[in-house]
């Protein structure tokens, strides 16, 4: 029972980080019909930026905000400079482009910041809390992880559902032609979508780094499991992305804990395939296939 509790908390906190990445992938997918395979590497890179400025005397929270801002900027620049030219091209162009960006960022980081593992500070204690002598199975940092991702999700929901700019972004993503006729500057909306997604990714990077430590490929598995979660949930659905990513986090944690750590990726593959065989567009995806 205690084991189950520990694995559950671990699964949820990991799952929230995957969820941030999954949600970022879904936002970009909905805006531009592109999977951003560089999402994890971008998050790694912005975390290095935070690490660098903190090392050089910037207070932690300012460094944190700088990383988020850097994510925003990196997302916007990537969309405007790299992705825009290939948006109208076959989907594979964008796949290769983002893979290229992934490889480039993972090479650039050790060039700029060195090829050693770095310790990235956690803003809150990672030591599990105790209540009246009994050990609880989560820490302040776990609360912060879950809380901050939830918080950003709510903000994004409000932005998309309750503001004019959110409405414009949805319109631009849903039907760019009509949006354009309605006077919406579609390009700008897409750039903003990428920027916000990259901000979310940057948050995931900042939350993952204290646990995984910081090195150029530290977000690779986070991207893989975030992507798996997004697929399970259905790429059209932000709620699905979160549910799917949490499911992946829990599944990995239970499989490693009860069956053996080396089987965890197989477990996530089996779950993914089981879901896709029943619902080829994910749990929350549209049942009707678009092509037909």
């Amino acid at each position, binding site marked *: 029972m*205690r*084991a189950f509790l*520990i*694995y559950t908390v*671990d699964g949820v906190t*990991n799952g929230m980080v995957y969820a941030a990445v999954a949600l970022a992938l879904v936002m970009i997918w909905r805006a531009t019909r592109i999977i951003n395979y560089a999402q994890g590497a971008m998050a790694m890179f912005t975390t290095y930026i935070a690490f660098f400025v903190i090392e050089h005397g910037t207070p932690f929270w300012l460094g944190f905000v700088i990383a988020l801002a850097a994510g925003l900027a990196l997302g916007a620049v990537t969309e405007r400079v790299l992705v825009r030219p290939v948006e109208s091209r076959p989907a594979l162009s964008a796949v290769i482009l983002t893979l290229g960006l992934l490889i480039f960022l993972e*090479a650039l980081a*050790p060039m700029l910041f060195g*090829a*050693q*593992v*770095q*310790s*990235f*500070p*956690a*803003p*809150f*204690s*990672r*030591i*599990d809390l*105790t209540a009246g002598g009994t*050990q609880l199975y989560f*820490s*302040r*940092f776990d609360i912060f992880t879950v809380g901050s991702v939830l918080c950003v999700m709510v903000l994004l929901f409000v932005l998309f559902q309750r503001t004019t700019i959110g409405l414009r972004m949805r319109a631009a993503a849903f039907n760019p032609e009509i949006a354009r006729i309605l006077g919406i500057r579609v390009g700008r909306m897409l750039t903003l979508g990428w920027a916000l997604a990259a901000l979310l990714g940057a948050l995931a990077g900042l939350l993952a780094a*204290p*646990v*995984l*430590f910081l*090195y150029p*490929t*530290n977000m690779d*598995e986070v991207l*893989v*499991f975030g992507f798996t979660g997004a697929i399970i949930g259905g790429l059209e659905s932000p709620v699905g992305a979160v549910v799917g990513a949490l499911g992946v986090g829990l599944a*990995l*944690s239970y499989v*490693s*804990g009860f069956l*053996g*750590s*080396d089987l*965890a*990726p197989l477990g996530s593959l089996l779950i993914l395939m089981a879901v896709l065989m029943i619902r080829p567009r994910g749990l929350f995806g549209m049942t009707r296939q678009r092509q037909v």
Partner: protein
Amino acid sequence: MATRISRSRPWAVVALGGAATLLAAACGSGSGSGSGNSASAPGITATTVTIGSTQPLTGPAALGYSEIAPASKAYFQYVNAHGGVNGRSINYIYLDDGYVPSNTPTQTRKLVLQDNVYAIFSALGTPTHLAVVNYLNSAKVPDVLVSSGCNCWNNVSQYPYTFGFQPDYTIEGKILGQYIKQTYPGMKVGYFAQGPNDEFGTDGIAGLNDQLQGSGVTVLSPPQYYPPTAAGAAAVKSAIATLQLQGAQVIAAFSVPLFTAIAEATAAALNYHPIFVVSNVGSDPPTLTKILTGGALGVTLPAALITGMVSDAYEPVVSDSSNPWVQLFKSIKNQYAPSLPWDGNVFYGMNQAYTFVQALKAAGQNPSRDDLVHAIQNSHWRGPGLVPFGFSSSSHLGLLGVQIDKTNADGSQTTMGPVYTTDDTSSGAITQYTGTPATPPSNGIPSD
């Protein structure tokens, strides 16, 4: 010539070395003191010896390990600046295989067939080097001082050209196991290792079991693993939590440094404070201290996490600034590779380079490839290592033993107890090594 003088008058060799450097500089790459030198083997000219290596310079294994080859190179540059070996300067080419076994064969063939190296030196990694060990031996290329503790390199009949360097993981496991059973009798011991079915973890656990099974300590089963392929980090928490639930008081770990760090941080986060006994590969204190003291736990843990960590070493501890080898290698690092950190990886690379220079000198004025093999097999030399090598015509085992040490609050280490030697068989007894440690030659270059 120079080396003969050094025995009696150390200062003379410094002057002579300096003169040789000047001379070499004046004549370009020409004839420093290479009179009587011939191109006696592939990779050897009258003035140069070219050797090669494959190393993880990129990818996850590059963390830390990418320092080894530049450190070796720095030592070779130092030797070259002081006249080289038998008048030849050492040209060290190391190529990146990213720790991916399918990259290693191409890079190794490039070194052998294209760059025409005399020998492969310090090639790093068990799975990577296993991909080329047959090739190198069938091509009769000396494959010396492999950077891996797999016992697979000690196979004279199948791999006559291959030599190990560090103690193999079973030797480490046995000596660590002996320490555990003597120091923590009656305690519960859990294993945390790379695996399952990875020779680093498996061999280490075999050595531990050799000492611990039926010894009075309780060995918890099954061993907890993190996989060397994907999703390793996500697996650590459940592994450590399981050990905590089982009540492990000692965790014996055969893990790479990143995973030692994740495991120790995870244990602390679980309010779990077992004694960590970590094999040499995963315990380099400067590396661990740097990783763990950066606030990754969100609280300042006075004295860091690794205080009290037990480990083993076959080299002097790098924080011991009174050790003459540490002084020598650190000053060479500062001069020739100032951008490298000062840690166990750098010492390791320099130690290997020093050993290679010993081997090359012993191979003779104009050595063939086989001369190098024979020189190593017949060697009785000592160097920075705490114990002798196991090299003979019937064994290509590297260093034969280790000393236990404990990490202090400031990240330095204190050695504990004697140096032990053993072999990797279960019948092989663990014996105390009583020889005195070697001191470096005054010019820092091994004499004949």
